[in-house]
C-alpha cells in the first residue's frame, strides 16, 4: 500500500523530470544555431513561471513584470560596461535589486485592485522604459549596451545553455517549493475569495506584497539569464508590450498548473518560429490563436489533456451564436 501511494506521490514529478532529461539531452546534442532557440525557451519559461507565481497562484494581474526582467539584464550590462562589478557579483545582486524594486513598486501598486493595479503596473513598465531611454550616461539610451558582458565559459553556446538551464531549473524548483508552502496556499486562498481570507485574519496586502517581491526577484533572475543568452541590453526589454509575453505564455500553457508556463514557453517560441517561416503576417495568426484560446480554452494547453475542456470549449463555441448574458455581470471571485 505505502509503495503504491509513494509512487503515486512521486508521479507528479514525472513530467518535470522528463522535461529536465529532455533539456539536458538537447543541451548536449544541438548545434549552436539551434541552442539559441533552446536558451530562448528556457529564459522565457523562467520569466513566465516567475510571472505566473503572481498571475496564476496569487491571482494578481501585473502588466509590468518586464520592469524586473529588463532590470536584471541591465544590471549585468551596466556592471560590465561601467566596470562596477564582475559578472558573478552582478548576477547575485540583480535578483536582489529586482526584489527590492518590486517591493517598492508593489507597496504603491497593491493599494489598488484589479484593473487599476494592471494599469498602474503598465505605467511603471513604461516609466522604466523611458528612464532607460533617457539616462544616457548610465544606459546608453536607445543604443543599448552590447558586448562580451559574460565570462567566456558561459558565452560559449553550449556552456551558456548548460548554465542557463541549471540556474533556471534551480529557480523553478525554488518557486515550486514556495508555491506548495504555506505562503503559496495562502496566496491561492486570497485569489479564490479575498473577503473570506481577510475574515480568517490573513493580512492580504502584506501577503500579496511578499508575492510581488518574490516574483520581481525571479523575473530579474530571468533577466540575468537573458543577458547571458543575448549579451545585450536595450530599452525595449522594459516596455509594456514585452510585459505581455510572459502573461500570454502562461495563459497558453495553463495558469493553474506549475509547469503550464513552461509548456506555454515551448509552444510559443516554437510556434512563433514556425509561423514566421510560413508567413509574414505573424501577428494576425498570433492574435487569432490568442483570441480562440481566451474565448474557448480558459485553462490553457494543460487543460487540453482533460476531456472536459473540449466539451466546455464546444459549449462556449456554441454559445457564441446564442445571445449572450443580458448585462455585464459583476466580477466573479474565481475565474
Amino acid at each position, binding site marked *: 500500500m505505502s509503495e503504491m501511494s509513494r509512487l503515486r506521490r512521486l508521479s507528479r514529478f514525472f513530467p518535470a523530470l522528463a522535461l529536465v532529461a529532455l533539456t539536458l539531452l538537447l543541451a548536449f546534442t544541438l548545434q549552436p544555431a539551434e541552442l539559441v532557440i533552446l536558451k530562448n525557451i528556457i529564459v522565457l519559461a523562467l520569466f513566465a513561471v516567475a510571472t505566473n507565481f503572481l*498571475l496564476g497562484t496569487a491571482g494578481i*494581474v501585473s*502588466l509590468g513584470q518586464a520592469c524586473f526582467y529588463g532590470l536584471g539584464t541591465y544590471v549585468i550590462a551596466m556592471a560590465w560596461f561601467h566596470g562596477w562589478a564582475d559578472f558573478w557579483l552582478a548576477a547575485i545582486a540583480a535578483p536582489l535589486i529586482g526584489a527590492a524594486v518590486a517591493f517598492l513598486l508593489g507597496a*504603491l501598486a497593491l*493599494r*489598488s*485592485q*484589479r*484593473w*487599476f493595479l*494592471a*494599469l*498602474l503596473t*503598465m*505605467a*511603471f513598465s*513604461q*516609466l522604466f522604459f*523611458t*528612464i532607460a*531611454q*533617457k539616462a544616457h550616461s548610465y544606459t546608453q539610451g536607445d543604443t543599448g549596451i552590447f558586448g562580451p558582458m559574460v565570462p567566456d565559459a558561459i558565452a560559449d553556446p553550449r556552456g551558456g545553455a548548460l548554465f542557463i538551464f541549471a540556474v533556471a531549473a534551480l529557480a523553478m524548483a525554488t518557486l515550486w517549493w514556495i508555491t506548495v508552502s504555506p505562503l503559496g496556499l495562502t496566496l491561492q486562498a486570497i485569489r479564490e475569495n479575498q473577503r473570506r481570507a481577510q475574515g480568517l485574519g490573513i493580512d492580504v496586502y502584506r501577503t500579496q506584497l511578499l508575492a510581488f517581491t518574490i516574483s520581481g526577484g525571479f523575473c530579474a533572475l530571468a533577466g540575468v539569464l537573458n543577458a547571458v543568452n543575448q549579451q545585450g541590453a536595450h530599452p525595449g526589454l522594459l516596455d*509594456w*508590450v514585452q510585459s*505581455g509575453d510572459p*502573461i*500570454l505564455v502562461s*495563459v497558453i500553457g495553463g495558469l493553474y498548473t506549475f509547469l503550464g508556463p513552461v509548456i506555454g514557453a515551448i509552444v510559443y517560441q516554437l510556434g512563433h518560429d514556425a509561423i514566421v517561416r510560413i508567413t509574414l*503576417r505573424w*501577428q*494576425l495568426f*498570433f*492574435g*487569432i490563436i*490568442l*483570441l480562440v484560446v*481566451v*474565448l474557448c480554452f*480558459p485553462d490553457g494547453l494543460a487543460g487540453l489533456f482533460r476531456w472536459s475542456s473540449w466539451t466546455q470549449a464546444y459549449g*462556449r463555441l456554441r*454559445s*457564441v451564436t446564442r*445571445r*449572450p*448574458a*443580458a*448585462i*455585464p*455581470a*459583476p*466580477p*466573479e471571485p*474565481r*475565474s
Partner: protein
Amino acid sequence: MSAGDVIVQLLSGLASAAILFLVAAGITLIFGAMRIINIAHGSFYMYGAMGMTTMLALLPDGDTGFVVRLVTIPILVALLGAATEVLILRRIYNREHLAQLLATFALFYIFADLARQIWGSDYRTASIPGALAGPVTFGSYTFPLYSLFIIGVALAVGLALFVLLRLTLFGWRVRAAVEDPELLASTGTNVMVLSTAVFALGAGLAGLAGAVVAPLITVTSGMDANILVAAFIVAILGGLGSIGGAVLGAVIIGLFQAFGVIWFPKWSSVIIYFVLIMVLVLRPAGLFGRVE
C-alpha cells in the same frame, strides 16, 4: 520667458491635451458604462489617422474633402467599434478581467496586422487644409492655426458629450449604467444595445482624435501602442468613468509635458509617470474616480 512665450507654450500643451482628452474620453466612458478596458483602443486612433491619409476617390481631398473626411472617418471607426463589440466583446463580459485584457490584446495585434496590410509600413502624411494652414499672430508671437482648431474640436466634443450625458435620455441611461447596471436592466432598458452604442461612441472619439491629428504628424504603424499608455494615464488620473476627470487629467498631462520640456528638458517624458504616481498615492481611484 516672456508672457507671450508662456502663452504659446500653454497653447501647445492644450493642443496635446485636446488629443489626449478625445482618446481618454472614450476609454473612460467605456470603462464607466461597461467595466471593460480595451487594449485595442489605440488601434481605433490609428485607423482614424490612417483613414485621413488615404487617397481615395470616395474620400475627396482639399478643404471640403477635409470636412467630409473629418465627419465620415470617425463614423466609420465607430462602426468598426460596434462590430468589435458585437462580435467579440460580448463573449467575454462574464469573464475575469485577465481574459478581457488578453482578448483585447489579441485584437490589438489583429488590428495592427490589418492596418499594415491596408496601408503598408512606411510613414504616411496628410496635408493641413488650406483654410486652416496659416499661423495666428499676436504681437511678435505665432501659433499654428491648426492647433487652435484641434483645441476647438476638443472643446466642441467635450461640450457635446456634456449635453449628451446630462441632457439626453441616452446620456441618462449611460450614467445609470455607470452607477448601477443591474437596476438599469430592471427598468427595461436594452442594456446590450446600450453597450454597443457606448463602445461605438468611444471608438468614434478615438477615431476622431486620430483623424484630426493626422495632418500635423507623420502617421506610422506603432502609433496605436504609443498613444495607449498616455491615454490610459490620463483616464486613470482623472478617474475611470469620469469625463470631467478625463478633461482635467488631459490638461494636467498636456501642460506638464509642454512646460516640462522647458523646465526639465531631459526628464520631460518621465514627468507624466511621476504625476500619475503622486496623484494615485493621494487618491487611489484618480481625481474624480470612485473606489470599487
